[in-house]
């Protein structure tokens, strides 16, 4: 056997192996849904960072009176606390127009705790108060944006208390009582339009985020 034919044989073998990998491993993986439900089989760390869950995030409804739920992909977090953190962080991101968030722009999540009885304590940066434009309705929608982002996505969380800058607060802008955890309230969620659609219906006017 000449040296060249040995090299050629090895090359053919490598190409064949690569083709087989693409055919039997790569392509099926490519066609797999990208978002995986939490609790799916554990995978390597880079894949973990890519994992997403589908969740409802809340923005001011068109008429301004309620919060409208939109289905979004939120990065997967291991366990309730970590997932809660990811949900609030996603909710705090400034949405693309025409969506409007009732939470003042620039508000950051400082910390998040979950008590044994299922109450989440969401510690927001000072901006939640200092950047608040006021008005009872506005403030109600701000508070319930956070309450609903957690309680409607995580059944383990029964109530939410908002803290500001590490401290308990009376209110954000003088109206909504924040001195104890607020339970989930669907009162402030916009009624589904047109028939018995799921509360987290498709969002036709929402641009698809990355």
């Amino acid at each position: 056997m000449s040296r060249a034919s040995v090299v050629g044989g090895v090359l053919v073998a490598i190409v064949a192996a690569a083709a087989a990998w693409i055919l039997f491993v790569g392509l099926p993986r490519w066609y797999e849904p990208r978002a995986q439900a939490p609790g799916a089989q554990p995978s390597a760390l880079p894949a973990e960072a890519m994992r997403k869950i589908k969740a409802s995030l809340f923005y001011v409804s068109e008429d301004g009176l309620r919060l409208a739920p939109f289905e979004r992909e939120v990065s997967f977090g291991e366990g309730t606390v970590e997932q809660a953190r990811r949900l609030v962080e996603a909710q705090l991101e400034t949405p693309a127009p025409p969506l409007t968030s009732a939470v003042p722009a620039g508000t950051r999540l400082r910390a998040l705790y979950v008590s044994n009885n299922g109450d989440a304590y969401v510690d927001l940066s000072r901006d939640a108060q200092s950047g608040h434009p006021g008005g009872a309705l506005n403030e109600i929608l701000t508070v319930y944006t956070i309450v609903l982002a957690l309680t409607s996505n995580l059944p383990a969380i029964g109530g939410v208390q908002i803290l500001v800058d590490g401290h308990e607060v009376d209110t954000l802008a003088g109206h909504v009582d924040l001195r104890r955890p607020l339970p989930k309230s669907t009162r402030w969620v916009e009624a589904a339009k047109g028939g018995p659609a799921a509360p987290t219906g498709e969002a036709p006017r929402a641009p698809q985020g990355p």
Partner: protein
Amino acid sequence: MVALDDLAPIFQLTVREDALAGGLTVSHRGKTIVLTPDQGLASVNGRLISLSVPPVRDGKRWLVPIQFVTRAIAPIYESRIELRPASRLLIVGDLRVPRVVVRHELLGSQARVTIEMTPAAPATVTQEPGRLLVKLDADAIDASVQPFTSQDIVQSIRTADTTVTLDLGPRFGSFRSSTLASEAGGGRVVVDVLAAPEAGPAQPAPSTQPRPEAPPPVVTAPPGMRTIVIDPGHGGQDAGVHGASGTLEKDVTISVARRVKAAIEGRIGLRVLLTRNGDQAVAPDDRASVANNNKADLFLSLHANASLQHQLKGAEVFYLDADSYGEEPKKLPPAGAGERLPVVGGGTREIELIPWELAQTRYVEQSGLLARDIEEQMRGRVLLAPLPIEQAPLRALVGASMPAVLVEMGFLSNPEQEQQLASSDYQNTIAQALVDAIVHFRDDLERARAGLAYQTSAAGRRPRLPER
């Protein structure tokens, strides 16, 4: 300070000293006041009240501040008790005892006597030889006559029972009188006493004074509703919503609050208190406490709204969403149902244990009724938001121990509404609607009470709301 022994026979009180516990129990028809010597706090039928001076022992007698009558006895007594320290009067029962101030002034050849009454009472003026009698239709009057120099038209003014007597002098010729209601629920009788013409046929010149317009109807204060607290939202550093053209929520709220106060006092003669009278900050708890400490029958918090959707317009009325407070309010005993708890020294005592901060949860139903009355009165007069009645866990309302609502008078985030909210026209319209709603609400309560036949309304007694 007054001696408890002196108060006991007047109010049919039983005073019992608890030697073991060192306390004093004062009871009246099954209702109890518990006093502790040297402590400025007393428990009145289970509710804590504060006294300016603690009760002290003076030999065998116990002395309490006079305030004890209004703060401790009044809540457990079936008749209305009113203390007027200035005139040293204690009014028990639903008696009409207007304050009356009599002034005299000399205007050329006539004397004008003005009788100011708060609240207004019907008056009749009759002439008797040598004097004019102004009879006021009231149970008693609490009168003061401002001193004046006697002259030969009106020589002196006296008051006795419910009559003001003007003693006439030799120059008396004729008189005319007029009655009118004043702005703040009071009334006024003006008696012009004219001197007789000196000589000739000169008739008294026809009065150039415009005749006073017919007084607006004065609705008497309803039994069961006496005090209203209005809470102008925000204040001081906290300006509330800033409108795009510079209108501040805190300015709109105080302005409307003052208009409501003036209108209520003028029309229904109720006591109206504001949680702030100027541009100052008020702590959240202090707003409801003004109402609780003054035993207000109604709490009205005024605000202006804001939305990120700038097209949103209209007024909204909020009342408490008790569900937001979890299971705790549902476990509370219904209003009026106290628990019998053992007390130090033996025996049991009825006590109502209600967390201060959840007081409103027991009035939610009535607050909803009030919200609907307000919505009804505003409809057609001001634009209402698409969902005009809302419920939320509102900080200003939760501690209020009486029917309470928060009115969002419009959206400062909408340019058109900002202009309206800053205008006195709109503010007056809102104020008027609120006053009308209060009158309706009072009537609703009266009807509910009549249907309940909860307590008979004997003369001089006021039926109590079952909730109080």
